[in-house]
């Protein structure tokens, strides 16, 4: 479905110091810098997969998406998506993909969503009967019937995202790219979108490539994770193995009956994450030390409750992002 070898995208930018004189100077002389947004990236995505592209801001996730969809041209490397070279923007290729950008509306702002859908119906050459059926199905699944005839600019963010998703699914694409589809949404709206995507994927087995800063999206939807750091692949594998990036560790939470001293050396050894009044702590414990450390804490501190779990993906991400050398 997607096959990339040595994929690289280079951007050339100029740096301008602040101030009027620097602006004046920049009219005559500019210092350009070339950066690799994505560097020698290899990836293969099979039909039917949902893959999560993870990484901090500026890591290269969106640049990858842009290259996969043919919006920008790679500087180097080979890329094949659905058997096409995306940068050639073949019309048949464009008819088989869809892109949803959480931060940018693709619908026409000043008209109701239904008018945009009718336009897309023509662009994707969908028969009238099939179009009507598709609209009813998607509107029902997304509970969007009530606002299809409202101007897009008047929709709430959650409603807008629903119609954006409808627009991208009208032509039953084989490959869907979702760039931060739940960004800015409240918790209920996020869950609705996630549930819809999961259900849609179960029904259609459409290949989905997703980027999101919300780990809940990734955990709920993706079986496979690709971590990108500084334009390079940091991890590529099943979500269950993601926690092993940090070795075999467990997350253990303790709740205390009174405030604790966070400077105690015991806490500092295990990457303690405290709540605001220092009565609850999350520790990252190596599996072999789990029994010993827990017994010690239970014996010497006023523990009222404790629990252990696998390392949450969010915690792994935070740790990796604050110390990328861990996986280099």
């Amino acid at each position: 479905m997607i096959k990339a070898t040595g994929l690289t995208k280079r951007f050339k930018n100029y740096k301008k110091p602040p101030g009027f004189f620097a602006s004046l100077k920049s009219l005559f002389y500019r210092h350009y810098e070339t950066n690799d947004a994505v560097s020698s990236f290899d990836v293969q995505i099979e039909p039917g997969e949902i893959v999560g592209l993870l990484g901090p801001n500026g890591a290269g996730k969106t640049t990858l998406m842009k290259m996969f969809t043919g919006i920008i041209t790679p500087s180097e490397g080979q890329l094949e998506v659905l058997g096409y070279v995306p940068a050639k923007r073949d019309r048949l290729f464009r008819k088989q993909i869809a892109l949803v950008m959480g931060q940018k509306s693709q619908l026409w702002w000043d008209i109701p969503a239904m008018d945009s859908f009718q336009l897309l119906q023509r662009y994707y050459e969908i028969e009238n009967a099939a179009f009507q059926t598709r609209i009813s199905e998607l509107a029902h699944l997304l509970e969007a019937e009530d606002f299809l005839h409202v101007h897009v600019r008047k929709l709430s963010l959650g409603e807008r995202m629903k119609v954006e998703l409808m627009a991208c699914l009208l032509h039953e694409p084989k490959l869907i790219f979702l760039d931060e589809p739940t960004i800015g949404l409240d918790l209920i709206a996020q869950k609705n979108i996630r549930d819809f995507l999961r259900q849609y994927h179960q029904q259609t087995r459409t290949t989905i490539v997703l980027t999101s800063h919300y780990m809940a999206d990734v955990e709920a939807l993706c079986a496979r994770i690709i971590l990108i750091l500084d334009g390079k692949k940091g991890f590529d594998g099943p979500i269950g193995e993601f926690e092993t990036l940090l070795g075999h560790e467990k997350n253990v939470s303790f709740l205390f009956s009174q405030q604790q001293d966070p400077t105690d050396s015991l806490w500092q050894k295990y990457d303690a994450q405290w709540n605001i009044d220092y009565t609850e702590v999350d520790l990252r414990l190596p599996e072999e030390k789990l029994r010993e450390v827990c017994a010690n804490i239970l014996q010497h501190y006023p523990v009222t409750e404790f629990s252990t779990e696998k390392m949450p993906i969010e915690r792994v991400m935070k740790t990796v992002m604050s110390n990328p050398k861990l996986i280099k």
Partner: protein
Amino acid sequence: MMTAIRIEFLKWFQTMKVTWSEVFVYRFNFLLMVIGPMLVLFFIKYNVWSSIYQGASGQEINGYTFEEMVSYHLWFMIVSMLSMAYSGQDLAEDIRLGRISSYLIYPINFWQFNTARFLSIECIQVGIVLITLSTTYLGFSHILGEFNPSAFFAGFAISFLVGVFWFTIQYTTGLLAFWFEETWTFRVLFQIIAHFLSGAIIPLDFYPSWLVAILDYSPFPTLAYVPVKIFLGSYTELWKAAFTLLFWIIISAGIAAWVWKRGLKLYTAAGM
């Protein structure tokens, strides 16, 4: 074959319908579109020429009476309404802010989308022009001159070609946003030059003959002076005007295609 043509037609027609919906959303903007050119004509050009003729000793200036001058500018207003309604400003902004990404994904080409938008605006302008002309004929038929159907339709056809030419220019300058932060300067610069050299401000009869001879090799006279004279029924070289415009349309469309191809390589889809 017919099905393929029908499918293609539906794509264009639906794009036009969406543009109409967008234009009619803001009622006050639409009202300004209808009455704006008339207000400009009346408050600026009419008053300026009225003062000039009051100061002149004779009844005519360079062979034009005051009424003929007003008639010339009224017909130029019609030509400009039919030819200069499309602006590349939105297009440039869309490129600069990375909003054209959607059009790179949809299975329709960017030029097709924009051409369909141009055609839809052109249709609205035809409606506005017909209303403007009908009301003017009712009250000021002596200024417009006698209705001459063949001159009228020829004038419309040539004005449409002028519109296509302006569209390709606007489209090309809009595409310069791949390289430049602001592209309006290019548009305004070209418009100012075109206004001076096309006879939009003063009829070309006022210009020295050597300059008019040089301008004959450029597209400028066909952008204002020639279509106005066609509407007035005093220009007979219709085919020459049409071929001149077609020649320059092909040149500027070729440049637009080249600029798009080069510019797209620089596109970064900022803000996505």
